[in-house]
């Protein structure tokens, strides 16, 4: 009896120790980064660091304003989300609920293969292929994208709207009204798309290494994470709830949109957050693809302008920053790392909170 207790206690302690290791690692990372970063804030304060867009670490005198760099990081990350989330979630839904089982078994590993490509290869692609392409064929590319996204979305919207509205007509006119509405809406969508595509076609890209380039590549890099985690979440929602929904007479789309998606919301949120974290922390690609100009784009939403990010700055400036004498130029990089770490932590906490909230909602607590 005593022996068993002791063994159990020992086992618990060993497991606790192992589990604490990762927590300790995080704490140590926090401690050492803060240790190097705090002297910087102590000497130069917070104001310049967070509000000034002037980044001249080797200037005379040096300027350590990171507002433009923070903005660049945010812009590139947001862009990556815009690319990765719609594509990733659609792909996950398609894989989990629409494609036959055999296809899913084959397709998912291929998507996950994207994660195995080293980031410097992505960066090289961005620099050597995508950047010149944006410069020479930018307008054509944008026009194609507008049509490729706009045409199916417009067609689906026109179909759905014309169907819904035609249901309000008396039964014998429904068919005719539906057709007229469909033609009208389709024509309107086509005209709108045409003008949009025309405008997109006018855009010229002076410098192909810019926020858009980095966002596109980061979005693609985040895809395997988003697809994989989201697909797992959709699968985890279970067969029972889908069958229950069908049994109550719901169609496939109703089941998907009203039952499966809400049920797996927490997992989908986790997929998005993990994808975002991948984009925020990536260094090599943004260093090669974003242009590294420490400026706030004008106008502020101009993704065709080169930007600089936190990670690329830390990586690019570390070599010359003199750590022998512990200069400000060295400490400021740690101040940036600390900012990045705090941001990641906040992201994680928000994610955690979202996940918990949706759990509560679905367990009815």
């Amino acid at each position, binding site marked *: 009896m005593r022996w068993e207790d002791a063994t159990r206690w020992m086992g618990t302690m060993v497991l606790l120790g192992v589990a604490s290791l990762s927590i300790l690692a995080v704490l140590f990372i926090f401690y050492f980064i803060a240790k190097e970063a705090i002297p910087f804030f102590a000497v130069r304060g917070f104001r310049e660091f967070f509000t000034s867009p*002037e980044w*001249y670490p080797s*200037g*005379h005198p040096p300027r350590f304003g990171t507002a433009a760099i923070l903005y660049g990081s945010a812009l590139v990350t947001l862009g990556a989300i815009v690319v990765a989330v719609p594509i990733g979630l659609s792909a996950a839904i398609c894989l989990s609920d629409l494609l036959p089982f055999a296809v899913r078994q084959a397709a998912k590993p291929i998507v996950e293969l994207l994660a195995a490509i080293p980031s410097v290869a992505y960066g090289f692609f961005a620099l050597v292929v995508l950047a010149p392409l944006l410069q020479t064929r930018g307008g054509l590319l944008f026009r194609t994208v507008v049509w490729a996204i706009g045409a199916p979305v417009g067609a689906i919207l026109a179909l759905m709207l014309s169907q819904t509205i035609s249901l309000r007509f008396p039964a014998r006119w429904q068919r005719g009204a539906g057709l007229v509405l469909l033609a009208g809406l389709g024509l309107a969508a086509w005209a709108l798309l045409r003008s949009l595509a025309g405008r997109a076609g006018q855009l010229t890209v*002076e410098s192909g290494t810019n926020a858009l380039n980095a966002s596109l590549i980061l979005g693609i890099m985040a895809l395997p994470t988003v697809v994989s985690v989201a697909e797992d979440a959709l699968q985890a929602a279970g067969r029972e709830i889908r069958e229950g929904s069908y049994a109550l007479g719901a169609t496939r789309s109703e089941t998907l949109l009203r039952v499966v998606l809400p049920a797996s919301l927490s997992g989908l949120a986790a997929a998005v957050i993990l994808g975002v974290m991948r984009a925020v922390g990536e260094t090599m690609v943004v260093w090669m693809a974003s242009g590294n*100009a420490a*400026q706030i784009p004008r106008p502020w939403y101009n993704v065709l302008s080169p930007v600089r990010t936190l990670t690329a700055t830390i990586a690019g400036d570390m070599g*010359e920053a003199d750590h022998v*004498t512990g200069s400000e130029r060295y400490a400021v990089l740690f101040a940036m790392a600390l900012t990045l770490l705090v941001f990641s932590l906040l992201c994680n906490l928000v994610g955690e909170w979202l996940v918990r909230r949706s759990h509560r909602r679905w367990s009815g607590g």
Partner: protein
Amino acid sequence: MNWKTIGTATTVAALLASGKTNAQEKIVIDGSTTVGPIAKAFAEYYMERNPGVAISVSESGSGNGAKSLINGACHIATMSRAMKENELAAAKEKGVTPMAHVVAMDGIALIVHPSNPVQGLTLEQVRNIYKGLVTNWKELGGPDRPIVVISRDTNSGTYETFEELVMKKEKMSEKTEYVGSNGAIRQRVLTTPAAIGYVGLAFMEGVKALTINGVEPSAETVVAGTYPVARPLFMYTNGKPEGHVAAFLGLKDTKDGHRLIEEIGFVPLRPKVAEMPKTP
């Protein structure tokens, strides 16, 4: 302990000792991406003639090369600038005495896309482009296109030399893009019609090099001192070099060494030609 074990022990010791003399001597070289190609060409040449020597060449930037030498992680630091005061101070603190050897001269060429009609600029105009005062090629007699200004990253020796020789310590425009290597700048300029960038003379292939103050960037003008954006390239050792390291550095004064330097696109320093120094 019996005689057999003692016998074995002696054999092992003898093997170890002989192994030590036969073992490859290693020379580790680290530093500038500009000087790197010289070090690599020298290394290939030297290892061919001295099979017992293994030379490894890394290119992590002049600053990292200096750090490496100070920390005792390399035998030769290649640098495209002289060591700075604080680096020398740090070296002294660690008991390292850096000794500079000028291996060649390097001119920094201002390069543009081959389709750009602009032939030359003054140093002042280049400075104004990088300061962001001149923003369109039409102000310089070119087409009506915004200039895409590309610089090396602040971590590179090329940047520091450019900052000193051209910028005169004035700030670059916030619009300036930064790129991690000479090759990457060439790549960007080669594919961007409105770009301007600066690289070592070895990286002008395929792009158009501008004349500066009317002088073309070339080996002759750099040695003659007429080309305004030129600098010496260094290899640093800890104290006076000895043995293979000294012989390796001696290559810079040989006929073959000059040929190797010229093949890469740099300019050998002295016309005096020595024979390949005897290997120790």
